[in-house]
């Protein structure tokens, strides 16, 4: 796997610190959500991204406003990075009237068209044909926008992902397919669900490039994504980026994840994307204690404010259960 270094897409010191802020915000959001689930404040629908934040930050960083994202169920951070406030996302998880779906569903099943965010269903991989449709409109209009379609290595086995990649490859649509390979599809390890080691190899069958990278290295993810985006914007079609990673928690907060060993978890925790990046930033003298404290204080305040907003928000009116069915 490539080691951390700056590649051809240059980032300023401010941008690097902004990346650190996002990594920490998303980590803190998920950590707080876990506590809220255990306290019974949030009922369910929590799929922690802890351990996988570098993928969200590395792929979303630098996206244009009109670029579209089609996140998977674990990518809460993409909503934040695309412009939804932490308060609204927290209210969404609380199923409050101020959440994106007004309490109709929790998790990430709601989108925001003005911000270029598609909200998928629970049918994993079903977001990828939608991503291809969005990308088709960019191609028809001759725009240089791109669509990022996220899915896990588990969802890569669905027909939808195959159909979407085949179609996108055929018409060279501006899609970046991001596979978050976190080893387990719920409880089933990758070797029990596919005969190959790298999902990236499948790209060849669709006529575009696939690359497997270290998904815990935010800069590696950023560089690979920017390369894929540049190709897509230039009309050269899709790329599949497989980000090797690991989720620290179970599939959902209700899953104790007995199917894996403590040693395996400890090994992956030693590859935590946050300290790796922090160490790098210190070594480059981009980060010092003062700046770190500033970021951590800001993150804590924003998460606290988000929880307060969600707690203070009203529940939906019962009658809203049967509205918004038709336009």
């Amino acid at each position, binding site marked *: 796997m490539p080691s951390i270094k700056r590649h051809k897409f240059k980032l300023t010191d401010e941008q690097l610190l902004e990346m650190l802020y996002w990594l920490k915000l998303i980590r803190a959001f998920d950590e707080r959500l876990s506590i809220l689930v255990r306290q019974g404040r949030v009922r369910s629908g929590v799929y922690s991204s802890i351990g996988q934040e570098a993928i969200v930050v590395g792929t979303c960083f630098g996206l244009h406003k009109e670029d579209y994202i089609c996140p998977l169920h674990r990518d809460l951070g993409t909503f934040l990075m695309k412009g939804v406030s932490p308060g609204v996302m927290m209210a969404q998880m609380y199923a409050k009237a101020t959440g994106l779906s007004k309490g109709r569903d929790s998790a990430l099943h709601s989108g925001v068209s003005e911000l270029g965010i598609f*909200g998928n269903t629970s049918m994993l991989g079903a977001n990828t044909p939608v991503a291809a*449709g969005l990308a088709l409109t960019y191609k028809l209009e001759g725009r240089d926008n791109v669509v990022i379609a996220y899915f896990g290595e588990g969802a890569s086995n669905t027909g939808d992902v195959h159909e979407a990649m085949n*179609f996108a490859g055929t018409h060279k649509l501006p899609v970046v397919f991001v596979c978050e390979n976190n080893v387990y599809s719920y409880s089933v390890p990758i070797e029990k669900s596919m005969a190959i080691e790298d999902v990236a190899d499948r790209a060849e069958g669709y006529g575009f490039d696939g690359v497997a990278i270290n998904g815990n290295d935010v800069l590696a993810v950023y560089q690979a994504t920017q390369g894929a985006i540049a190709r897509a914007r230039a009309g050269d079609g899709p790329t599949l980026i497989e980000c090797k990673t690991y989720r620290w928690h179970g599939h959902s907060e209700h899953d104790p994840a007995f199917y894996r060993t403590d040693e395996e978890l400890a090994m992956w925790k030693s590859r935590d994307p946050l300290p790796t990046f922090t160490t790098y930033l210190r070594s480059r003298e981009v980060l010092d204690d003062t700046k770190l404290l500033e970021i951590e204080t800001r993150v804590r305040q924003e998460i606290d404010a988000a929880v307060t907003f969600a707690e203070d928000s009203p529940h939906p009116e019962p009658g809203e259960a049967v509205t918004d069915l038709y336009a």
Partner: protein
Amino acid sequence: MREIIYLEAIREALREEMARDPKVFVLGEDVGAYGGAFGITKGLQEEFGEYRSLDMPISESCIIGVSVGASLRGYRPVAEMQFGDFITCGFDQIVNQAATLRYRYGGRASCPIVVRAPVGGNVAGGLYHSQNPESWFVHRPGLKVVAPSTAWDAKGLLKAAIRDDNPVIYLEHKYLYRRAKGPVPEGDEIVPIGKAAVRREGGQVTLVTYGAMVIASLEAADRLAKEGVDVEVIDLRTLSPWDKEAVFASLEKTNRLLVVHEDVKTLGLGAEISAVVMEERFESLDAPVMRVTYPDAHCPFSAVLEQHNLPNADKIVEAVQALARY
């Protein structure tokens, strides 16, 4: 007024809507240069270009998912399922993706797609080219379902479906493609979604039907009239939301109701209409609501077997006679 066939009426609606609104496009298997398995999209690619009559891989789920994505950016895709039977391969994108989108977005988005599906039997189609899938979609909130029986409605309802801001399942009956010929206005004549049509007025029995069964029902009504039984035939045209008021109004006159459909009996439209009439118009009934439908069986290929299963004028006449005698 000039007369055209049902199939041409569908094509005319597509062409006019595509000319009117550059955001309207069609996509499906073989819909490009070939013009579709039934020739519905013939000429569209030539006139509007490759991407507005777009050949898709054999990927029904992708066809509908792509439509959903395009609709989120203001497009009005019309997806063609080559046969209604194949719609099962795109079922998830319809019932989970498209139908729930507005609801789960908190009312901040809509999904204006049309899924056209050639349905129905009596065309030597066998198990996988004859089915009537309407109940699956009528059963799902968030979708609208239409099923024209005339060339006029085929055009007018498709225009309404394309302009509707919701996902609409448009069921076109293969038996009617060339057999249903009639007057069709040129230009913009919209048939509103949700409105039934009285195809024949009568005072003794209300017969509610749709699709190809309108033809069999009218034939039965003609024969019954000669015996002195006066049947009112209502063509639902829209199956979801179906026109309760039109059915109730007819029932006030006749006090007897027969529902005829080509779909299988269990949990078909007849079951729903019957239940609603019981709940809301029980006092109007002089007899039980009755049904003539396909049996709860598959669609066999052999003509002998298929004719055994299909509802027809004979079966309808018999049922109306029993209902009138009750």
